[in-house]
């Protein structure tokens, strides 16, 4: 137990792999046992992560850290450096939370090779947790690449009709970005004498600005592919639509977050000047992603594809928040990453549940589902409203902060881009509600061949148990978001101060009244969303 006390993060990261190997060693015929074993293992990891990571106060300091020299190859030392701090705490918890939940939610979706699927799922969890916790860039790169392997097989083996194409596209697309990034990483490591991001940041400042820009671009492209930022998003609809439900949930829930997290953790702190230099193009691409994603989502006939394009739109908000270089915008991006993980994850689960019954995802095949499946409809409605960004749900807070941050940002383009991005919120309401109307209201749409869909059963207890925690989180994050962003506030403020972000612009009629009193108004009574908003006036 002493080993466990000193290496909790190692345990969290690699325990899923151990269980995964154990499952792989079990014979094929024990698939059901393997699935149960995998679920119990993932659940145990979740419980342990809650127990070990929460309750360390919200000081913003590093919560847990493990660091040791690992190996030195061709003169470059690599550290075994895992840490959980304010920036990744909730993303780690989101990961450990979503994995068992998704396993439970897709319990009966797969018919064959369920044991292998569970094993791959656990290997993927190791990759995701490792990438989130790794603080050494080489170590991060290992997890970042290794993550592709289980996902490739999950899409390729258990996916839809076009699964081979989608899996290859996903793999090669991501690999192309990260291989070029590797060259930049090696270049910088040569200058810094190692892969420590702090040393790298110091080395980067000694380089000519044009070199910094090139290096930042290669970092940014690797992360932007994962986000995915327009125009690098084209792998996403294929991968999402072809992946099995569990794959889609994790892809949307965690893998995309790693892109945004990569910006926040590595790209911006290492190259603050270059990042600021490219804030405008990044923001422009984000705005395009927001509007374009929403417009394309509107015309989709497949519900899953619609959700996939809505992901492009929502992740565009994350990038806009990061590009605003304000505390509130960045905090909004942090929250929006969690939001998107919860809401889009829930949407993919819901689509999976209805697909398991009807074996179709075409909007035109549905109609009047509300009558047949009232409980399902209620859940779907809540998640839809959260995705749209209705106040009191999580979507509202995240998007509001991001738009607020963009609007207030010290860059000249802030107000225009914020206004344009706001149309994305509106379009979001259009495509989601229109889809909701066509699927759930109206007369029942019978299948012309069999005369009926298999929508004979509403959600069972297992499915309700999966969705309830998600709905609770949606409301909690909408009502008291501070729970989820308090820890990241100090690191974000610190990050922006070190990046020399331009001071925010205030658009108030009486500046004399509003400038000073930030400290006095800090009382948080009742207004959950308020305190973070006040941080704008730093």
């Amino acid at each position: 137990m002493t080993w466990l006390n000193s290496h909790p993060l190692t345990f969290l990261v690699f325990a899923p792999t151990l269980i995964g190997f154990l499952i792989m060693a079990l014979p094929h015929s024990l698939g059901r046992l393997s699935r149960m074993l995998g679920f119990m293992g993932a659940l145990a990891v979740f419980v342990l992560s809650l127990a070990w990571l929460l309750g360390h106060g919200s000081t913003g300091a590093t919560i847990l850290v493990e660091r040791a020299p690992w190996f030195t190859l061709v003169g470059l030392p690599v550290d075994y450096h895992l840490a959980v701090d304010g920036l990744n705490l909730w993303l780690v918890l989101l990961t450990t939370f979503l994995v068992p939940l998704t396993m439970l939610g897709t319990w009966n979706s797969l018919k064959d090779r369920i044991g292998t699927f569970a094993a791959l799922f656990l290997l993927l969890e190791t990759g995701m947790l490792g990438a989130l916790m790794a603080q050494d860039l080489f170590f991060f790169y290992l997890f970042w690449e290794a993550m592709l392997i289980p996902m490739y097989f999950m899409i390729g083996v258990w996916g839809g009709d076009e699964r081979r194409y989608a899996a290859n596209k996903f793999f090669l697309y991501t690999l192309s970005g990260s291989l070029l990034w590797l060259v930049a990483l090696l270049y910088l490591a040569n200058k810094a004498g190692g892969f420590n991001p702090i040393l790298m940041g110091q080395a980067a400042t000694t380089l000519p600005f044009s070199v910094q820009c090139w290096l930042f671009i290669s970092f940014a492209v690797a992360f932007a592919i994962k986000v995915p930022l327009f125009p690098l998003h084209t792998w996403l609809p294929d991968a999402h639509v072809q992946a099995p439900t569990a794959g889609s949930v994790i892809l949307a829930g965690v893998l995309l977050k790693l892109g945004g997290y990569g910006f926040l953790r590595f790209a911006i702190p290492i190259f603050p000047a270059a990042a600021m230099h490219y804030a405008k193009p990044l923001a422009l691409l984000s705005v395009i992603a927001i509007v374009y994603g929403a417009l394309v989502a509107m015309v989709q006939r497949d519900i899953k594809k619609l959700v996939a394009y809505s992901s492009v739109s929502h992740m565009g908000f994350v990038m806009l928040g990061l590009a605003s270089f304000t505390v509130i915008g960045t905090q909004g991006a942090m929250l929006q990453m969690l939001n998107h993980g919860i809401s889009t994850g829930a949407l993919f689960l819901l689509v999976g549940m209805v697909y398991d019954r009807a074996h179709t995802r075409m909007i035109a095949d549905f109609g009047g589902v509300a009558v047949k499946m009232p409980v399902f409809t209620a859940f779907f409605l809540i998640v839809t409203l959260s995705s749209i960004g209705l106040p009191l749900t999580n979507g509202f807070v995240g998007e509001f902060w991001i738009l607020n941050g963009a609007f207030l940002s010290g860059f000249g383009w802030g107000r225009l881009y914020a206004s344009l991005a706001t149309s994305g919120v509106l379009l979001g309401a259009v495509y989601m509600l229109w889809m909701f109307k066509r699927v759930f209201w109206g007369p029942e749409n019978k299948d012309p061949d069999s005369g009926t869909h298999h929508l004979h059963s509403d959600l069972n207890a297992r499915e309700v148990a999966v969705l309830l925690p998600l709905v609770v989180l949606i409301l909690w994050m909408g009502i008291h978001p501070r729970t989820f962003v308090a820890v990241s506030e100090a690191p974000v403020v610190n990050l922006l101060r070190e990046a020399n972000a331009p001071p925010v612009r205030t658009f108030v009629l009486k500046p004399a009244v509003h400038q000073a009193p930030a400290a006095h108004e800090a009382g948080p009574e009742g207004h959950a969303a308020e305190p973070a908003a006040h941080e704008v006036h730093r």
Partner: protein
Amino acid sequence: MNLTPSQWAALLPLLYPVIGGCLVALMSLDKDQATTKWIRAAMYGTALLAVGATFWYLTDLWTTGSQPAFFQLHMDRLAQFTGIFVVVAAALTILQGWDHFHQEGWVKGETLALLLFSVSGMMLFASTTHFVTLFLGLELFSIPLYALVGTVRARSESAEGGMKYFLTGAVASSCFLMGGVIIYGLSGTLDLAIAAPVLAAKGLGTDPLVLVGAALLLLGFLFKVSAVPFHQWTPDAYEASPHPIAGFMSVATKGVAFIALLRIFPVAFKDLGVVGVKMQAVLAVLAVVTLVLGNLTALVQTNVKRMLAYSSISHAGYLMLGFVAGTPAAFNGVLFYLVIYLAMNMGAFGLLTAFGLVGEKTTFDDLRGLGWKRPAMGVSAAIIMLSLAGIPPMGGFYGKYMIFRELVATGHVGMAILGVLASLVSAYYYLRFLVALFLQSPGAEAERLASDRPLVHAPLAGASVLVCAAIVMAGGFLQAFLANGFARRALVDGLGLLR
């Protein structure tokens, strides 16, 4: 003959395989049907014993750190490294050969004897700078290989591939010989390590004739590593030869040729500054062409063996990039890469045997769905193919990492970018192997045929594949041990680099 212990020690690693080869050849004379089975087992046992004895002897030399020599033959750490490398490849080949030749129905003793002679020649080739000894080694390992390619005489394309390999190989050997003759004629010494300072002292360092001689020598090496434009024989020869032999050629020939190239060009010729620089430029151009052509051609192959042949061409390109960087650390990376490459390619060709693909039935379609039928082989295949593509945490990634790192450090950023793009392209065709194994279900016709055929039984090949997969994974997690403790020490003690 009064040889000192040191001289014996230098000779013994070469003698063991030769003695084994002679014994096997004698055993194969026995044509008595009744004892055939036992004779076969004895031949394979003898071959393994010879290889094992060499391995044991070389590891013993390695651990004691002694560097015996026999006149121009230096059994130094680098030669010991090469010996261990070749011997491990040969052992895996013998194990896979047992299963493969039974599947083909063509178990002959001379195959093993030729293989063992070739092993001896390879060690000779990589442990000297003396030109005549070098040429002797080259021919001693090449001629058996020409015969081995065409060994399954029942297949008509087997003879074709062997002939093609022989004719092109003979031209390359004669070019190599001509290059050596030119250098000898100008310097008056056969030892290339002495020739270089002599030529430099005579002021012939930039003489066009010296450049021609060096270029012809280089051509000989590049032919053996199958670099573009001397690669044409590779796909045909691999396709024609039995799977284990193709694996052995792809690994051992390439490995020893690179190690000998390392011994001659950057080290022995270092006094001929301009030769080194010019050769580096030539290698840079050829490495680019090799990477582009090898990878793009591999993309469109439907036959797994031809794909692996083009893949081995493209790996020659990565290894040449190490020479382009030209620093001791890059050579360290090249040696590490070779160790992993040994496991990857012997594993990849071993998989074909383990899956029981014989004759012409080596297309991607023949692999369909086999990963699920043989899970252990399937997982090994995934490890090996992803490592070939250079995906971490497999060992292949670290080989590329070390080489690219040195490229970037020496200012060849463009080459590094080209290298990573090449490995991006390569990921597609390696994934295709996995697509066939896992993502495609066998066609109805193949299913019917499979049910007719008896179940493939290839325990030794399977075991060798598992060993290879284990080495590949070890390369990913014990990378520092392999690179610093094994490859680096070969360079430090063998060539005095990196000291």
